[in-house]
């Protein structure tokens, strides 16, 4: 029995950006949809509009038969009349109430027995037994999050909204809780929307992903589709293709385009004719690194450059090469030791033409991002001046 969430709304800040988005989702009990976008892109505002905390000037929000918002008819249900559970970024637990009273806050009209039963159930699911009488400040970050989540779902809302659920935690806890959170959300059987700026959250939590940039939805689909097939350069940067290069097609032969960037020739599938501006997306794991090339090989792209710097990432080493443009490569530690390359050493970057994803650049979406790549969102090549490897 899935209902339809039908959203089409516009919110203009008086001295700020405009948030404009429209989408329809079948609200399936088990689905987690992630709204992924850089900070300031408007994704939290979208969530607040769904919750009724912000009021769009135009548009509508419908959930099944119910109308939450219809700006034209002047309908805008207050938050308490919508059936949503909202998890705030820093949890917003009531500091003067015990865990128990925080969780049961939404149980106002229920009879006492039902409240007690639901409380027991949630304490068990969220592993909070024994903490009932504690105050929020006596809890760890992870416990606070579980209390906030238990509080949000107490009334079995129609939709659960999580605003940056992991950003208030330190890096180590974050990793652990990311997986835990997915399990918890799954066990709740409530359709869930998660706002995050971290693609790893999206990959870990989302069945579906909605990419948000500059107050607009730029792509949505299953997480696999969106991450495997970003439709625009901005989308590619958001989902974390490691190298995004922008240039113009200089020549096309046999369906293969030649793009000149930084004095090098890049070959990839041609999406259009000569002169077409394209974004070339190269994933670090598709880039090979070599000192020299012995004999012939099939790869079309062999760019000469120098090692810029390297950082260790788990079992791999992320190597950034300067070939007139920067390319990020991911190689095993073992291989990197064998090559024994130092920053400044000459090197070859080798990429198959088929591994380069070519996106024709449409009507300007995301131009600005390409010039100011933020390590947080897009090209994972950090600024040489900044601390290396900060993106992880």
């Amino acid at each position, binding site marked *: 029995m899935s209902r339809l969430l039908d959203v089409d709304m516009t919110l203009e800040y008086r001295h700020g950006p405009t948030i404009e988005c429209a989408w329809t989702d079948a609200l399936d009990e088990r689905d987690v949809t992630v709204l992924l976008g850089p900070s300031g892109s408007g994704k939290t505002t979208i969530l607040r509009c769904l919750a009724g905390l912000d009021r769009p000037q135009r548009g509508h929000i419908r959930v099944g038969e119910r109308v939450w918002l219809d700006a034209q008819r002047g309908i805008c249900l207050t938050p308490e009349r919508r059936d*949503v559970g909202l998890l705030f970024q820093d949890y*917003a637990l009531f500091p003067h109430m015990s865990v128990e009273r925080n969780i049961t806050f*939404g149980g106002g009209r229920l009879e006492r027995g039902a409240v007690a039963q639901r409380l027991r159930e949630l304490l068990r699911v969220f592993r909070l037994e024994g903490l009932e009488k504690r105050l929020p400040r006596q809890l760890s970050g992870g416990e606070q999050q579980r209390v906030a989540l238990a509080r949000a779902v107490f009334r079995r809302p129609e939709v659960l909204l999580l605003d940056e659920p992991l950003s208030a935690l330190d890096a180590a806890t974050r990793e652990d809780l990311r997986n835990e959170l997915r399990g918890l959300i799954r066990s709740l059987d409530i359709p869930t929307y998660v706002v995050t700026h971290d693609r790893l959250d999206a990959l870990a939590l989302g069945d579906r992903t909605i990419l948000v940039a500059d107050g607009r939805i730029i792509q949505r689909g299953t997480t696999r589709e969106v991450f495997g097939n970003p439709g625009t350069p901005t989308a590619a940067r958001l989902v974390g293709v490691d190298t995004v290069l922008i240039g113009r097609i200089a020549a096309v032969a046999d369906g293969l385009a030649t793009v000149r960037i930084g004095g090098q020739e890049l070959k990839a599938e041609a999406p259009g004719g000569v002169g077409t501006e394209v974004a070339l997306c190269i994933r670090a794991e598709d880039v090979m690194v070599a000192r020299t090339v012995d004999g012939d090989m099939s790869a079309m792209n062999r760019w000469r450059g120098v090692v810029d710097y390297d950082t260790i990432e788990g079992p791999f080493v992320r190597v950034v090469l300067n070939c007139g443009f920067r390319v990020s490569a991911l190689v095993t530690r073992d291989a990197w030791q064998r090559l024994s390359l130092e920053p400044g050493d000459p090197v070859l970057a080798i990429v198959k033409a088929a591994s380069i994803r070519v996106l024709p650049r449409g009507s300007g979406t995301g131009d600005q991002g390409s010039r100011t790549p933020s390590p947080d969102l897009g090209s994972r090549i950090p600024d040489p001046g900044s601390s290396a490897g900060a993106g992880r």
Partner: protein
Amino acid sequence: MDWTAVALTIELAAWTTAVLAACGLPLAYWLATTRRAWRPLVDAAVAVPLLLPPTVLGFYFLMSTGPESVVGRAYERLVGGTIPFSFSGVLAASVLYNLPFAVRPFAAGFAAVDARLVEAARCLGASPLRAFIRVVLPLSWPGVLTGLVLAFAHTVGEFGVVLMVGGNIPGVTRTIALAIYDDVQALDYAGANEASLLLLVFAVAVLTVTYGLQRRVVPL
């Protein structure tokens, strides 16, 4: 000691505090949460008694509520009698004059409460009133109590407005402060001393309690 004056003073202070609790709390909450452009104007209107001499407020109050005024005529037709020189008249003027002493501490207390807590309460099904009672008040009670105590204490010590609006009618509008003035005029220094000492001790006690409250910030 003029016990009639003492009783009247306490009555006036209690009523003033009650009215300020009823009107001042919503006003203060509005001031603490609104984003309207004309909020500074309301802020200023609330604070203006801090700067004005009580005679100015008393003068305008008399002018606007006298028997010739629109308000005065309406009052006479509906309730009978006049506003000036009555207890209700003094009460009304006292409420206006004490607005800043109550509303400003209220508003400061409310403003210190994280707005997201109210939003969280609303998302959990609470009406604005329920969110206020269950979340805002428990987290801002030192400010609310400070406002109530200050309003009460300040009314007890009020002189100018009561004299301007109430005249000096024993049992109706003559408060302790006015009784002291009369005592001094009549060269009854012993009587003036007794009443003055009472007010002095009261004021020191109230301020001690107030400062004590302000240090008792809810640990978060």
